[in-house]
């Protein structure tokens, strides 16, 4: 834990969002970081998104639940501008990106870190080059690149793998390299596409912890696509703080504090079937949601 703190150089000013009430009145926080307005998309005749609207506020993590093939990855591709909706608007930081060209999307994409479903690491490049990718594209100096790459690999606890190629890594390691690659350049938005799918429970837990730390200590806004209910459990019941001794610890929400920076939305047949907190989701009486949450 102590290792994380010196790697991230967390200081007190750096976005401490455990005290939400005060923070939520700030106009900077009120303006959504990501906003979908009645977005529709179909591939040929198959409707994938059918009027989807939601917002993600600054420092908020939105979990997206839904069946396989339900359009979760598509939603994320829309945010990155890799796809364009048939109708509706998508706003990033208040800017309508719906009609943006590839060229115009580039500065927007710089604000976003993306963790792809299967990692999507570049096979032909080493772990170092994978993580350095974005900085290289921006012609950053080698010295700074190396410093950043090491800092990020330390954050995901993979500094030893720096010279390996993606083929030599296990699934969990690949996913963590993917996270390191996404976090280079300190993006204000991080999108996770099923980051824990197919991983063993401790590794999955580690990945959720990383997401919690980014949310609470770095003020990162994010979308967390998953269909593992326990991930949602972690994200919406635990928070990260820096103790007086400078250590980063995770605490469970208790009576004195209720997490309001994590919400869940559920996609069903291209529409949002549920939107709200984890508690509300678990106590919903809708049989579809019950089935999804409890598997019965």
């Amino acid at each position, binding site marked *: 834990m102590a290792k994380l703190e010196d790697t991230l150089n967390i200081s007190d000013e750096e976005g401490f969002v455990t005290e939400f009430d005060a923070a939520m009145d700030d106009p900077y926080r009120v303006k959504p970081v990501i906003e979908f307005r009645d977005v529709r998309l179909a591939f040929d005749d198959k409707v994938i998104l059918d009027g989807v609207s939601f917002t993600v506020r600054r420092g908020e993590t939105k979990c997206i639940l839904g069946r396989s093939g339900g359009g979760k990855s598509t939603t994320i591709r829309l945010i990155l501008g*890799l796809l364009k909706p048939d109708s509706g608007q998508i706003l990033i930081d208040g800017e309508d990106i719906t009609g943006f060209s*590839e060229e115009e999307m580039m500065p927007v*994409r710089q604000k976003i870190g993306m963790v792809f479903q299967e990692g*999507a690491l570049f096979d032909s490049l080493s772990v170092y080059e994978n993580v350095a990718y974005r900085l290289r594209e921006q012609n950053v100096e080698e010295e700074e690149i190396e410093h950043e790459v090491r800092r990020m690999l330390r954050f995901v606890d993979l500094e030893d793998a720096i010279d390996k190629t993606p083929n030599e890594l296990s699934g969990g390691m690949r996913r963590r390299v993917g996270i390191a*690659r996404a976090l280079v350049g300190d993006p204000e938005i991080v999108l996770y596409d099923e980051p824990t799918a197919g991983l063993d429970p401790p590794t999955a837990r580690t990945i959720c912890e990383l997401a919690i730390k980014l949310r609470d200590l770095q003020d990162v806004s994010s979308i967390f696509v998953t269909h593992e209910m326990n991930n949602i459990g972690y994200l919406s019941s635990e928070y990260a703080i820096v103790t007086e001794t400078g250590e980063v610890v995770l605490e469970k929400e208790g009576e004195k504090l209720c997490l309001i920076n994590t919400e869940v939305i559920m996609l069903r047949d291209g529409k949002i079937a549920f939107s709200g907190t984890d508690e509300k989701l678990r106590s919903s009486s809708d049989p579809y949601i019950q089935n999804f949450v409890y598997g019965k």
Partner: protein
Amino acid sequence: MNPITKFIFELQGISLLVWRSFTGLFSRPRYASEWIRQMDLIGVGSLPIVLLTGFFTGAVLVLQTYLTLQAYSIQSSTGQLVATSLVRELGPVLTALMVSGRIGSAIAAELGSMVVSQQIDAMRAFGTDPNRKLVAPRLIALILMLPLLTVAADIFGLIGGAIVADTIYNQDVNAFVNSAREGIQVKDIIGGVVKPVFFGLVVGSVACHKGLSTTGGTVGVGKSTTDSVVIASIWVIIFDFFLSKALQYLLDIGKM
């Protein structure tokens, strides 16, 4: 979708791809090191198969035509016949077909697997235009390397022909070479180098387009790869006819 609409969409996709890649060359970033790498892979990498193909094509041409020409007692023109067919037709076409099989398929497979493993998405998400980084270097390398490979194939074809003429038909090598030199004109050589420029464009753009439009996982990659080779080969052969006609007209070939 009916086949004609589909064909028009594909054509549109390919044209856009080529257009974007070439207009991308006028601004940064250009990824020059990637160009060099592709030229090495495509040019130097294909040299052995292209030389072998050229050599045996020249050899078999002499083997088969000598006897026919002998029947008309004009076997002294073997060199001329072999040289013109090689330089005008067989060199460019066979080289393009070999390169389509070896390089076109590799490009489609590589880009296709990058698509299905989301590496192309990742590239775009992290600020790279795949047209600049992946497509342009491959197109440039094919367009520059195919003419060079063709010339190499032509030369090896003539060597193969000369060896067969000398060893099997006891025709003096000098006689063969003189006849060949008489037969080829500068226009033939120009035509023989212009054609592969277009073939390079055809093979490269079809392969890149097929690769980048892969859908349906690993099975899709296999399909893109085969499609790319089949389609590029057919287009090379169709294009060859029209290019030959155009070149005949432009260079006044065949006017007595």
